[in-house]
C-alpha cells in the first residue's frame, strides 16, 4: 500500500485542515489586521498602525484587567490544585488499606460523582446559580441564612475588596471537580507496591502524600497548572453574568475579555477591542510557554 499513500493521507487531512484554517487560523490572523484599524463594524476599516496599542498603554481599565489576571493566575491554580489534590488523595488512597491495596475514604464513589457535578453544568448556569447564592438580601442563599440569625448581610459582589474573591470562589468551585478526576486518574496509575513499600517503612499518610503521590503526579500537575492558567485568562462568562455593572463595582472584577466585549459590542470600537485581544493572545501564550519551561523536570519512570 505504499503506492498512493500521500494522496490518501492528504485526502483525509484536507477537509479538517481547510475548516480549521478558515474558522480558526484565519479569524486569528484577521484580528491582528483589525487591531491596526479603527473599524467600527460597518464600513471598511481605516488603517491606523499601532495607534490602538499606544492607547492601551494609558487605558486604566486595561491595566486593571491585567492586574486581575495576575491575581487570578496566582490564586486560581493554587487554590484549585490544592483542594483537588486533597480530595483526590482522600478519594483514592486516603482510606484504610485492605488486602494490601490502598482504598479511598468511605463513600468515595459517591463523592467522586458529586464533585464532578459543577463540571457538567454550563458556565452561564453556574453564574446564574451563584447570583442566587450571593444575592445581597434575605432572598440570597447565604445572606438569607445569615439574616435569619440576625446578622448583617455580606455584600459579596458589591464590596470592592471582596468582589474579585467572590468571583474566584465560583471559578474554583467550578474547576475542582474536573481536577479531582484528573488527579484520580493520575493516582490510579501509581503502582500499589510503591505505597505498600513506603507503608512498611513506616510512612504516615502525610509522608505518603508528599513523598510518593506528589512526585509521581508531577506531569499531571503540570498540565493542570497550564489549563488553570489559561482559564485564569478567560473568566469572561462568570464575570459578565455575575458581577455588578459588568466587571464592577468600578472595575473591581473586570477581566480582559470583559473589556474586549465592552469595547467591541458596546462602544463599537472593534479595532481597539482587537488590539486588546491580541494583547491577551500574547499574554496567554507567554504564560503557557513559561509554565512549561519552568516546571520542566525529570519525570519518574515506573
Amino acid at each position, binding site marked *: 500500500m505504499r503506492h498512493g499513500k500521500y494522496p490518501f493521507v492528504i485526502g483525509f487531512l484536507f477537509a479538517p485542515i481547510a475548516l480549521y484554517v478558515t474558522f*480558526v487560523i*484565519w*479569524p*486569528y490572523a*484577521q*484580528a491582528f*489586521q*483589525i487591531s491596526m484599524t479603527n473599524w*467600527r*463594524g*460597518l*464600513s*471598511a*476599516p481605516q488603517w*491606523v498602525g499601532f495607534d490602538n496599542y499606544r492607547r492601551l498603554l494609558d487605558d486604566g481599565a486595561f491595566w486593571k484587567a491585567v492586574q486581575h489576571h495576575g491575581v487570578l493566575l496566582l490564586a486560581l491554580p493554587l487554590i484549585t490544585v490544592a483542594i483537588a489534590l486533597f480530595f483526590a488523595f482522600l478519594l483514592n488512597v486516603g482510606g484504610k488499606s485492605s488486602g494490601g491495596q490502598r482504598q479511598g475514604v468511605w463513600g468515595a464513589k459517591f463523592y467522586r460523582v458529586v464533585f464532578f457535578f459543577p463540571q457538567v453544568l*454550563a*458556565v*452561564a448556569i453556574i453564574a*446564574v446559580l451563584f447570583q442566587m447564592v*450571593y*444575592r*445581597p*438580601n434575605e432572598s440570597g442563599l447565604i445572606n438569607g441564612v445569615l439574616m435569619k440569625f440576625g446578622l448583617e*448581610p455580606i*455584600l459579596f*459582589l*458589591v464590596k*470592592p475588596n471582596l468582589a474579585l474573591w467572590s468571583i474566584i470562589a465560583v471559578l474554583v468551585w467550578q474547576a475542582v471537580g474536573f481536577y479531582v478526576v484528573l488527579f484520580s486518574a493520575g493516582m490510579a496509575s501509581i503502582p500499589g507496591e510503591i505505597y505498600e513499600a513506603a507503608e512498611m517503612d513506616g510512612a504516615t499518610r502525610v509522608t505518603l502524600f508528599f513523598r510518593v503521590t506528589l512526585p509521581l503526579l508531577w506531569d499531571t500537575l503540570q498540565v493542570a497548572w497550564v489549563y488553570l492558567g*489559561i*482559564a485564569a*485568562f*478567560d473568566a*469572561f*462568562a462568570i464575570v*459578565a*453574568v455575575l458581577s*455588578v*455593572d*459588568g466587571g*464592577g*463595582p*468600578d*472595575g473591581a472584577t473586570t477581566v480582559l*475579555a470583559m473589556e*474586549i*466585549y465592552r469595547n*467591541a*459590542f*458596546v*462602544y*463599537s*470600537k*472593534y479595532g481597539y*477591542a*482587537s488590539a486588546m*485581544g*491580541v494583547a*491577551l*493572545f500574547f499574554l*496567554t501564550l507567554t504564560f503557557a510557554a513559561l509554565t512549561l519551561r519552568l516546571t520542566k523536570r525529570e519525570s519518574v519512570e515506573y
Partner: protein
Amino acid sequence: MSITPEHPAALDRRTVLRRAAAVGMLATPAIGLLSACATSGSDNDNEQVAGGTKSAANPLGVKEDAPIEVIIFNGGYGEKYATDVHEPLYKKAFPKAEVKHQATQAVSTVLQPRFASGNPPEFVNNSGEKLMDFGALVADGQLQDLTELWDAPSVDDASKKVRDTVVPGTIEAGSFNGKPYVLYYVSTVFGIWYSAKLFKDNGWAPAKTWDDFIALLTSIKAKGITPYGYAGANAAYYQWNVILTQAAKIGGTDVLKNIDNLEDGAWKQDAIKQAATAWAEVGAKFSDKSFEGLKHTDVQLRQNQYKVALYPSGDWIEGEQKQDTPAGFDYQLMPVPSLTASDKLPATALRATAGEGYFVSAKSKNPKGGLEYMRQMLSTAGAKGFTEVVKAPTVVTAGSEGFAFPPGVASSQAALKAAGQDVFNLYFDGWYKELDTEARTATNELMFGRINADAFVERIQKRADAIKKDSSVTKFKR
C-alpha cells in the same frame, strides 16, 4: 439614546446561553469573536430601485411594487403592533408591494453582517440590549436622512406636514448634528414612581420641595420601608438621570446642553455638584446598600411588594411590571423635587423624550419605501393602533387622544402637560456610550458612599475630556 423599556443591560437567560456558547467557542483569546464577521466593508453594490410617480397618495414617490423588509425588535412592545397595525397599513397603501417581516431579540447580531456586506434591510426598529450604535451608523452614512419624511404631507391631512403632527422635541431627539436620522416613536416621561395605594394608606403626599422630600423620606423610613432605591447592578443610569434632571432644574437646561456638547468643565458646573451632593445624602441615609448588587427587576419587584417606596424610572415601568404589580398598586409619577428656592426651572419641570428608535437604511434597496412605512406609522391610525396594542402613548399627538391609559401612564401624561414648556432632554448617553458607562460607574460610587460629589464630577469630567480629545470618536452637537 438608550431609552428602551426593555431590560437595559440585563442578561436574560437566552443572552446568557448565547454568550456562554460564544465564550465556549473562542476559548481564551477572545479575538476570534471579533473577526467572526469579515471586514469586507459596505462598498455598496446594492442596486436601489427606481422611484415611482409622486402623487397625493404617494408624496414620497415610492415604487408601488418594490418589496420592503421590516426588522422589529421583539422586546417589551412585542412585534404584534407591526404585524397587526403598521404592516397592513403599508399593504393597504401599496397592495402590490411585498412586506417582509422579521422579528429579533438581538438586533445587532442579525443586522451587523447585513450592513457589513452592504445589503441592509429597509426599515429597522433598533432597540433593546443589543441595539446597534446609532452614532456609529450615522458616522458611517448608513442612515437615511428623514428630512423628506418630516416635510411630507401627513396621511390624514394633506395640508399638514408630518413634522406638525408630532409632539415637539421628537425630531430633535432623533437628530445628529442637526440632521434627523432616527424616528423615536414612543413618548417617554421620566420621574420618580410610587404607589398611590401605599401613599394613601400612610397619608403621604408627593413632595415638591427638597425639605418636603426629606421629610417624606424620613417618615417612610420610620415605617420600616426603604424610602428610595435604584438597581446598581445594571441600571445605574436610572439614577444619573435623576441627578442630571435635578441639575437641569437648578441651573437651567443649558447645564445639560453643555454636557452633550462636551464643553470644557461641563460636568464641574455648580448645579451638577449641588445635585450630586443632595442625592449622595439620599443614598447614604434613605437607601439600602444591598441594592448595588440587585438588578432593576429585583428592585422593581420589591417596590411592588411595598418594600421600597420611591423608584426612579421612565413611564415604561408600568407595562414592564404588569405581571408583578398587585391589584390596586396604582403607579404614579412624581417629578424630581426642586432643590432650592432659586431653582431656574419650576418643580413641575421634567425630562421627557421620545424613545424606541426606528431608522431607514440609506444603502438599502428601497429607502423610499422605508420612509413611507414611517409615514404610515405616524398616521393617526398607525399611532392609535400602536397605543391600543402596547398601551403606550406615541409621539403622534392625535394618536393618544381619547385613549384611557392605565394609571401610571395617565399620571405621566398629566405631568407632561403640567410641565408645559419646561420639558428637557439629554443625549450624551446615546452619542458617547463610553461617557454613559463612566457616569453609571461614578453614580454607583457616589450613591453607595465610596466617593463624594467633587470626586464624582471630577472623574466623569476626566472621561469627557478624553473623549473630546479622541479623534476616533465622531462628535455630535445640539
